[in-house]
């Protein structure tokens, strides 16, 4: 079982948090903070597993994480999950994000956290791995996007117009914080 999936940046700002077990909001924040402290002090060339989160889990639980440029992706899992498997799952998750957002960067996650959630829902459900095949995941997401567009249709046209105007105000969406080139699937150890 996966107990929680956390995404935060190099400064510990949460970018997405998903708990598969209920915690009060303040505890959630504490967990995020604690996890950040555990993870952030580790070098990039050490292993991606660590034990010893006190708030979440216990001896049976492990934190498995990957660090991409400015973001940490942390999965808190128990011993029924395969460590390397979860690492690959994180990779699949990030690659899916990359496909959906076209060169994903931290800003995408900042402004579209809801979409990130929808994508994650196609991978993991209720703490259990639902799908690991990326093409299947992408088809499902695309179909849902299509539905979204259909529904939006004319009704949402004014809203879109307004948001377009609003968008113009921002200096420009800076996409400088790019993820490094992701290794192709062929290189995956899986």
């Amino acid at each position, binding site marked *: 079982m996966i107990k929680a999936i956390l995404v935060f940046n190099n400064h510990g700002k949460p970018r997405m948090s998903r708990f598969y077990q*209920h915690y009060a909001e303040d505890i959630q924040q504490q967990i995020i903070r604690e996890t950040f402290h555990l993870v952030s002090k580790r070098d990039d060339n050490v292993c991606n597993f660590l034990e010893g989160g006190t708030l979440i889990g216990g001896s049976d639980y492990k934190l498995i994480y990957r660090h991409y440029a400015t973001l940490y992706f942390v999965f808190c899992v128990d011993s029924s999950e*395969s460590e*390397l498997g979860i690492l690959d799952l994180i990779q699949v998750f990030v690659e899916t994000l990359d496909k959906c957002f076209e060169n994903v960067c931290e800003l995408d996650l900042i402004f579209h*956290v809801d979409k990130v959630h929808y994508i994650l829902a196609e991978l993991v459900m209720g703490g259990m791995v639902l799908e690991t095949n990326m093409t299947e995941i992408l088809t499902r997401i695309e179909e849902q996007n299509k539905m979204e567009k259909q529904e939006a249709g004319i009704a949402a046209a*004014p809203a879109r117009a307004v948001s377009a105007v609003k968008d113009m105000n921002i200096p420009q969406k800076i996409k400088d914080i790019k993820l490094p080139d992701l290794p192709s699937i062929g290189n995956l150890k899986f």
Partner: protein
Amino acid sequence: MALKKVKGTLERVLDKNLQDLVRGIRNHKENEAKYIAECIDEIKQELKQENLAIKSNAVNKLTYLQMLGYDISWAAFNIIEVMSSTKFTIKRIGYLSASQCFHDETDVLMLTTNMIRKDLSSQNIYDAGVALSGLSCFITADLARDLANDIMTLMTSSRPYLRKKAVLIMYKVFLQFPEALRPAFPRLKEKLEDADPGVQSAAVNVICELARKNPKNYLSLAPLFFKLMTSSTNNWVLIKIIKLFSALTPLEPRLGKKLIEPLTNLIHSTSAMSLLYECINTVIAGIPNHTASIQLCVQKLRILIEDSDQNLKYLGLLAMSRILATHPKSVQMHKDLILQCLDDKDESIRLRALDLLYGMVSKKNLMEIVKKLMIHMDKAEGSHYRDELLSKIILISSQSNYQFVTNFEWYVSILVELTRMEGTRHGKMIASQMLDVAIRVQAIRQFAVDQMAILLENSHVLANNSQRNGICEVLYAAAWICGEFSECLKDPKSTLEAMLRPKITILPGHIQSVYVQNILKLYGKVVRQAEDDGEEDLLREVNQLMSEKLPIFVSSADLEVQERACCILQLVKYVSKLLDKGAKIGDDIELLYAGELNPVAPKAQRKVPVPEGLDLDKWINQPPPESSDEEIGGPAFFTSGSEHRDTYQYESERKSYEPTAEELEKRREARKVEMEHNPHYLKGDIKKKSKKYDTSHIDDIPVATLDLSVPLHVPGLSASDKYLNMYSNVDTRDKSKKGKKGKKKKRRKGKETDSEEDLPAMHAVSTVEEMPEGAHLSDNENADEYSSDPFKKLDVNLDEPLRDDEKLPVRQHRLVLEASPDKELDGDTEKTKKKHRKEKEKKKDKKEKKEKKEKRDKKKSKSENKEKDGPTLLLTAAEEETASEANIVNNVENTANSTSPPEEQSDKTNDIEFWLSGSDAATTPSPVKDSRPVVNNVDRTKSPKLTVNDVLSSEEEDGAKVNEEKPKKKKEKRGSKKEKKEKKDKKKKDKLRRHEYEEAEGITTPSKENISMSQQGTPMEVQLPPMSSYKLLAENATLRMTYETRVSPQRSDQIIISVVFNNQTKNHLKDLEFNVLDTLNTKLIRGLGNSHHDAVRVPFILLPESQNEGQFAFSIESISMSQKMRGTLTYIIKSGDGSTHEKLDFKLHLPCSSYLVTTPCKSDEFAELLASGDLPEKGSCKLTPVDTEFPHVLAKMCFHLHFRLIEQVDKSASLFSKSIQGHPVCLLVKMVNGSLNVDGKSSESKLLSGLLDDIKSLLTEES
């Protein structure tokens, strides 16, 4: 109205959306909280709008705020509103928000049941999908119960996307609503073989999660998983399955054997590291005894550890530590690698390597390794890793009773050095090690005491840090050791001074109290020494010191310290008084602490027997009446001993009178006065007390401040390094010495250094531990710790057939006619029926295959495989009973084409047994078990209670049964409920029959028997004498054994002896072992691996005056000879005085008739057979039966000799039977003038003559 709406919408277009919110927050970095508060106000406004699009926008923003740590539960109702939207986009926002913030206690969740149900049944798969995803996060027990059925329906959806999600969510449903597990399990199992890999993977996932908690219930799925494992290519699925197997294999050793091959193949072939790693893990967990596989794993792990990928290194070490537990030798070979990992820059890896160190140390390298760890400890940052290092140092040194410590001086030095470690949490651990070593290694005491004295001298260093860490615990040990072994102290007086320093008072109470206690010990020592040496000055000095310094402890806030200090202070005063008079008192003080203290075994306290008559729950005195609260209560909550006694003595008086208010007041006054005069009273006013004890000098005590340049270094410590050097010197010296000697010696030296035992241990560790008499350490005392595990509820037997009441709750309308839910139900059961039928057919196929295989195997071996938890050769009666029950039910159900779960069950168990034992070519799968139902069939047709009708009319009975079934079929069409009832009735009936059969008492009136009898109504209703097929085997005062033979036509080489053991004593009989001397023809089947001399264990204990039935299978070669075998039964009588071993010899007689199977034959077939000439052998005999009633004679023959009546005309009859090997036997019996003529025909002459002998002995013997 509509216009207004549109207007509202247009206005709302300018509302912030999520992106605006995020942007806003980013732009208000300084006053984020304020900005968010404003936004929340806006959101509240938006939520008041009717338009769902606006609401959804608001909820979407709330979800974001939730991530930032804001509580949004106040909007729960609005979230539900958004969830109820018909638009997918809006609905999705609602469900997302709900999944983030709803939980068990969200009360609005109960409003959602119908909405979610609607979504689940939506045409749009994404509506249902989003609902399932959301539900998986916030499902409650109520939702689970109400929606279980809907989710079950989705499991069979035509869309794989929904099936997948539905399967996965079932796990959550089971957790919340455990009753759903059994009804849903068959469908879940089906999904394991779903066409869609995603669904399959989901099902595997769910079952793995379930099995992780209660593996034994899923053992029967092993063959299916095995198949999946060998066929699947999906690594995710494979990993899960392999993980599952690692949970299952410890329960079933045979499974491990079966897995070896595929697992090794995978290990060799796979390129996926994750899969390789899981395979290795499963091998370690499941087949730790298979050395070759373990070796392979260790090899592969070494490759992992050597990999540059830190992750693989980490996992390799992790798995290695698991191997360490079972195969320490294999791991030790890679010591170099593991030690190397200790230097890794990655802390996780170092920690894992530390775990492994435990198994790496030896006498030779312990010092070296510890030295290395000490260096690490100096360098280490972060207290966690340092603590870990410290505890590992202690662990590896102290393991298995200091097995590897050769020099305890070194070890004590290490311990003392460890006290320098800043901020460690393991002070207690070090302290207990110090105590342990000082007490148990006598030779080291002198040294230890010296070291401890130094520690005490420098206690300020340790005490200073007491606030921050637990290292001051060490002082506890130091004080105790110095006090207890004060005879080893070089300068007790200076140690005493050190212990009396005022700084001590900042130590925790429990340490101070040890100080105080040991101060007295030291004091005694000093006094005595001074007396012996006649140093009066010293005496006075010490007394002065004591009476000056002790009061600092008397005023301690800790009760224990205070009490001890008071006591000792008084003692010192008294002693000094005596000393002034010139008395010698040193010896007397020492007597206070005379005697050796031995370590107490950890379990000793629990082993002390409770003295007779001691009931700790009983009140010692009458429980105080409630009114006494008032009196004792109030300001004084520590009442003195005398006060206590008073209250209890008053007890009886108090009953007679009620104290008035004045009296109470008076008493209170009196108590106050008493308190004032009682020195042991802790008063609120401390000033008074300090005055009393005159401790005003406290501040005058000169405190020597030590100027330390290196604050944490304890001066005067012997560095542990010198021992290491010493050791290595010795080593090199040894080596050089040996090097000089001849080649022969060199070779020997090589050997010697290999074995580490020759390193001399310098000190002996005493292992004496105090235990109460008669108690043993090894006594098992695994008190059943009942854990309140939520998974307990999911621990249900999944192989059992579903009961009638086990159904998923189906939603029903309350005010509908009764008929409609019934219809619904019918539909449901019909579906399952169909399904079951299919399953059954599959099963049948399997069974057939199995039987074929069995026949093949049969020739190969006659020995049986007897596994621990596998099929035993003996079946208890109880077991058999259920089986026969199942069998009958099957018969009914086969004709009715309805479900037959019991058969399924037995099949299943047989399946897995078969599957598991199938790998061993030499074993046949438990023939006893297989033949069991068949045997019972025989039992059944041969009806349990004998009446003449019954015996003679068996054929008609069969016919009648067919008739009987016809109306039954009609009935079944009317409703499944009725059918079930019938089933139950049938079961009951059968139980009844079975019961009577077991008793084998006598005849009952025919009317009590089945309908067939009344239908038939043959005129011959003659009373028969009681008959039992059980014959006496042996009997003595304690035990009586009767037996019966049973055969099955399917197994021509086997006969089963069912023995009833009857305990005739009032004691328990246990360890019954049954053994028979095999003959050439007949051999007891004993199970694989047992020689033909071994006895077969009877798998039960006989309770006093009870009986139980065990079955023993014999393999036979030829059925034509009667057999007599000698055997013995050994058993243990367990009576109050003890147990005695006894044996009982018996002779087992197997007449030819025991090989006959009652076989029906129609009269025309019978005639044909006689005419065909297939029966060339003839035989006849003439005898005078004891019982001259012809029907009786026939009944007896049919019952005891397994014949069947074909035709009866007046006083002649023809009988038929068949041997298990298929030899037909025909008999013509005629009664003429009291004598009986029997003519027989058969294809086997020996069999026939044997049978005729049987008939003779049966009918002529007095019964």
